[in-house]
């Protein structure tokens, strides 16, 4: 157990160092959500009437949604780092060492979650510059940050698992795009599902990204419904733990195929 914790720390360090050495990539992952926020803000403004969100602006509604969407979209790329390791001999060397498999997975996910946190802060800065205001205070921001990191970790570990199972960059990117688009649209990220077709709101109820968006919006509102925050947050934590555990099992499947 202590070895697993230590290994997680070493592996986290490895990925954090790698990511700050790719400033172009960091800038890209920061610029992208900014564009989405401003673009969708313009496109949907006025088109959508948002019932149940008081008199706050659409941009205030949209910002937590874009945070979750960004966390989802960037975590889809997570597994590409595993594939790069498999294309070299790095993965094989590590798997023939006493390194903790959980540490190998967790270290990479924690480093991703750190990037997610930076993106979340930036999206909020832009959203607020564009006029979004929240009454929820520090608890609201904290819930949003944690929820976005959980989305990043959960879908990052799924991406890592797909990487271990398919061992192919193309397959991984195809699958992650195929999954992330419906998750984005069958949710309250851009519009309240109540104004969308009924089946969309039904589907949204099973969508982890939507749980995160709901928990964040509630916590950010003037008078949060904490039972809803806890319930959706709880689903999200459970989902994250299950997929992270399953993904760690995927190392075995990978080892069977080499």
């Amino acid at each position, binding site marked *: 157990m202590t*070895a697993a914790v*230590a*290994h997680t720390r*070493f592996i986290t*360090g*490895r990925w954090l*160092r*790698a990511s700050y*050495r*790719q400033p172009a990539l960091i800038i890209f992952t920061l610029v992208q959500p900014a564009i989405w926020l401003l673009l969708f803000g313009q496109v949907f403004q006025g088109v959508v009437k948002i019932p149940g969100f008081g008199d706050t602006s659409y941009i205030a509604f949209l910002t937590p949604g874009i945070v979750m969407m960004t966390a989802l979209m960037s975590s889809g790329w997570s597994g590409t780092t595993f594939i790069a*390791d498999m*294309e*070299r*001999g*790095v993965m*094989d*060397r*590590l*798997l*023939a*060492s*006493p*390194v903790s498999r959980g540490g190998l997975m967790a270290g990479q996910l924690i480093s991703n979650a750190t990037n997610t946190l930076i993106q979340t802060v930036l999206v909020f800065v832009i959203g607020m510059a564009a006029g979004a205001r929240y009454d929820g205070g520090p608890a609201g921001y904290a819930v949003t940050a944690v929820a976005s990191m959980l989305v990043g970790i959960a879908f990052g570990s799924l991406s890592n698992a797909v990487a271990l199972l398919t061992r192919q960059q193309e397959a991984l990117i195809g699958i992650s795009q195929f999954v992330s688009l419906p998750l984005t649209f069958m949710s309250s990220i851009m519009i309240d599902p109540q104004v969308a077709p009924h089946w969309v709101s039904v589907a949204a109820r099973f969508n982890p990204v939507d749980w995160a968006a709901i928990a964040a919006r509630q916590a950010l509102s003037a008078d949060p419904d904490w039972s809803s925050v806890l319930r959706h947050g709880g689903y999200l934590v459970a989902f994250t733990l299950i997929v992270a555990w399953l993904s760690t099992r995927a190392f075995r499947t990978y*080892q*069977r*195929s*080499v």
Partner: protein
Amino acid sequence: MATHAIRTTDLVKTYPKGQRALDGLSFSVGEGVVLGLLGPNGAGKSTTVKILTTLSRADSGTAQVAGYDVIREQDQVRHAIGYVPQKSSSDPMATGIENLVLGGRIYGLSRTDAVRRAAELLERFGLTEFGGRQVKTYSGGMQRKLDVALGLVHRPQVLFLDEPTTGLDPEARADLWTEVGRLAGSEGLTVLLTTHYLEEADRLADQLAIVDHGKIVAEGTPEGLKSELRGDSVHVELVDADTDGTVRSLLGQLPGITEIVAEGKVLRARVDHGATAVPAVLGILEDKAIPVSAVTVSRPSLDDVYLNYTGRSFQAAEEAA
């Protein structure tokens, strides 16, 4: 058992897509020995190494490394071995030092020890001045040396080197040969080295195991294997390929000539005495007006050893792979 650093018995492995990679592979290596696993591409060398390093599992058969069973005592095996995979195994985004320190930390070295060990290994492989640079800026030869250093970071008892010099230019290869040669003597380290270069096997290995189609076909010291083959080798290079087998049957009529193998324009055979065989060979070909571009005689090489045990030349096996 303690005197065997590696022992495998009847390893069989079939990949999911139907390829039988190992077909009852058995060998053993004593402590402190450099064993060369020599075979053409696809022979099953990497598969063997992956099983011995706990990366992969055999369908059946057993293997012990450093006295531990690779399945039941997987953790002990992992601590006892260093593994340098066929593909480069360093993180290109990290520096040489970072790679080595992370490597050491994973095996439980303290930060101070890992840093000290990293410096020591960089020095040993002549990489000290590049230690602070990202590995992606290294040449192929430098990367390969770092790979070997990564395999040694925790002072393993058994080191696996899977094709350490494949893809390197001749200079980098010679350089790495020197390094591996130095490893061998040190600290009772046992080395299993796979290669498809006859010359590399000849130079580095104390003992050789020749692998073909997932089996060991011959085992011994390079010298021992060669001297088991009596007589000399004759290579006859024709101007036109012996497509209808005429030349082959002509040579077969000569006394004291055996194991004739024709591959394209080249015929190879074993003879009792090279000196008397050459005039006879040239004579019979001249009688039939068959144009010859060269005839050479040599002491048996590893190539002849391979030919003797598998019925094809190493090069032909490589081309078929």
